[in-house]
């Protein structure tokens, strides 16, 4: 019986993944078109930016030709799209390397930082959210509320800078810049990213904790919770065994939304800690008008968002026996 429903759960999830894949492609196409159109409105192009202040018109024209920027916009878009479909995101105009190589260097950094931040933020947010829900209206609840509010109330660059002043400049415990390089040990790496993780976590924890609290409280008024109380079930068991399976779907959804920020939203953290991630790469791509790179970054961020949303939906299906059966 249980086996059957798990199987049908898997097939329901697979159907959903299939459907999502199609609509995701549509979303990606839309994103690429939007980015392309807006980028056309940007003043200057890669050739001008590369040559800078000292460019002469002839030089710019020559470089433009070399970069293929002298072709009409729609031709460039179509050829980019054709390349993308065949799995080739093209050549970076500025770095003179295939986009895939440029990205390959930064993407693992970004993913690692996001994953580590999520690893810190998710349990903390769950603990805060569940803790304050169980204490609804009580002193701990109010205290945690103020704490989470204050966390979002400070601009992230200030949080980051204060952290650097305390932990690197004053105490010298942690490095102020988070270099990520392949020849680094895990210990060094973790020390380096400790503060970026801290800063990113602070930003997302508050939102996730508040959503967790709301989702848990929403379940607390349900009759089955009263029933559990009247069965003599202890409060912690009520939350973990009775409420969580029902609250997990909205919580995961909220978390997926927050976590999608960890990739693209990390631009300030990447700047302050000099962490070579994707967000600052995308900013680079904007300022240097490196269209293929910009597009590739946008595609990755969009795909990451869609994947997170898909994970949230699949979780919702697997957590809910009713959806699982469908």
């Amino acid at each position, binding site marked *: 019986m249980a086996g059957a429903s798990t199987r049908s759960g898997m097939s329901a999830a697979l159907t959903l993944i299939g459907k999502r894949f199609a*609509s995701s492609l549509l979303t990606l196409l839309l994103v690429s078109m939007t980015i392309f159109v807006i980028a056309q409105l940007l003043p200057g192009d890669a050739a001008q930016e590369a040559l800078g202040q000292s460019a002469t018109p002839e030089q710019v024209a020559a470089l433009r030709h070399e970069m293929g920027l002298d072709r009409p916009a729609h031709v460039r878009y179509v050829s980019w799209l054709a390349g993308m479909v065949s799995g080739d995101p093209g050549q970076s105009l500025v770095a003179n390397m295939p986009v895939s190589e440029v990205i390959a260097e930064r993407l693992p950094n970004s993913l690692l930082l996001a994953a580590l931040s999520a690893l810190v933020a998710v349990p903390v947010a769950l603990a805060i959210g569940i803790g304050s829900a169980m204490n609804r209206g009580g002193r701990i609840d109010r205290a945690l509320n103020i704490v989470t509010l204050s966390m979002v109330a400070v601009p992230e660059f200030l949080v980051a800078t204060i952290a650097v002043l305390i932990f690197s400049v004053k105490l010298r415990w942690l490095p102020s810049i988070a270099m990520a390089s392949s020849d680094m040990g895990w210990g060094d790496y973790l020390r380096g990213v400790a503060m970026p993780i801290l800063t990113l976590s602070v930003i997302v924890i508050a939102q996730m904790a508040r959503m967790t609290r709301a989702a848990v409280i929403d379940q607390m008024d349900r009759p089955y919770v009263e029933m559990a109380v009247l069965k003599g079930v202890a409060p912690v068991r009520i939350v973990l065994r009775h409420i969580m399976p029902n609250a997990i779907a909205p919580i995961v959804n909220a978390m997926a939304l927050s976590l999608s920020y960890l990739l693209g939203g990390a631009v300030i953290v990447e700047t302050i800690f000099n962490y070579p991630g994707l967000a600052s790469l995308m900013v680079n791509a904007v300022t240097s008008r490196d269209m293929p790179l910009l597009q590739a970054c946008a595609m990755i961020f969009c795909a990451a968002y869609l994947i997170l949303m898909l994970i949230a939906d699949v979780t919702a299906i697997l957590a809910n026996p009713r959806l699982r059966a469908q």
Partner: protein
Amino acid sequence: MMASAFQRAKALPVSGKVGLALVIFWLAVAVFGPMLAPYPVGAFVAYDVFDGQSAKHWLGSDYLGRDVLSRLLSGARYTVGLAAAAALLASTTGTALALTAAVGGAKVDEPLSRFMDMLISIPSKIFSLVLVAAFGSSLGLLLLIAAFTYVPGNYRIARALAVNLAQMDYVQVARARGEGRFHIAIAEILPNMIHPLLADFGLRFVFIVLLLSGLSFLGLGVQPPDADLGSLVRENISGLGEGALAILAPAVAIATLTVGVNLLIDAIGFSGKGKGR
């Protein structure tokens, strides 16, 4: 009207009253601040930079020797005004689209939802960077960017609410009465979404304040010599090491503003829920 508002305020829990007081305070600063500023916002009045507190300069001087108090009083209106306007714009747009999707069926819902996915998936700060680079920095553009960034979030919430409400019996009654979609959306569904939407509005407000300060880090913001609160923090960040008032004051201002709005919203949500029971 006034009396009932007053009574409602009295019924708020303590945290709500604190929130209300903070919100009123910052609204007042936003409106009257520039009149109260002792010095012009761009005037170089102190010989030294990052001065501490003094009788002449209550909050000291900034990185160029300007009066921090005056800049704070003048800058609050940008943060409060811009965030409020953008939150309002985001909420109304998001809600209008959500209602359209809720009463319009899958044909409207699906493309709108894809569009929102698209907006949400482009990192907002980078998107802002592109837009500012393309169109130049102006208050109007900042407003649009902030609004655009937070439309999808509002849309998600409003759509979930509206789709639920569209199934309610009273909506079915209205449909069976022969009412048009517009009437159903505006008269039947919308009034019942106001409460959660207000709460959402508050959250958006806070996010926008923080987005604006984030943008100021990237050099996008209000035109000098004026500065919003985030820019004030940013431009004085080099004073952080010496604990300059010039950076602490605007940081505290942002914190009290956002915490105040949140406390107020939490309290309103609480008493609103109590009433429903």
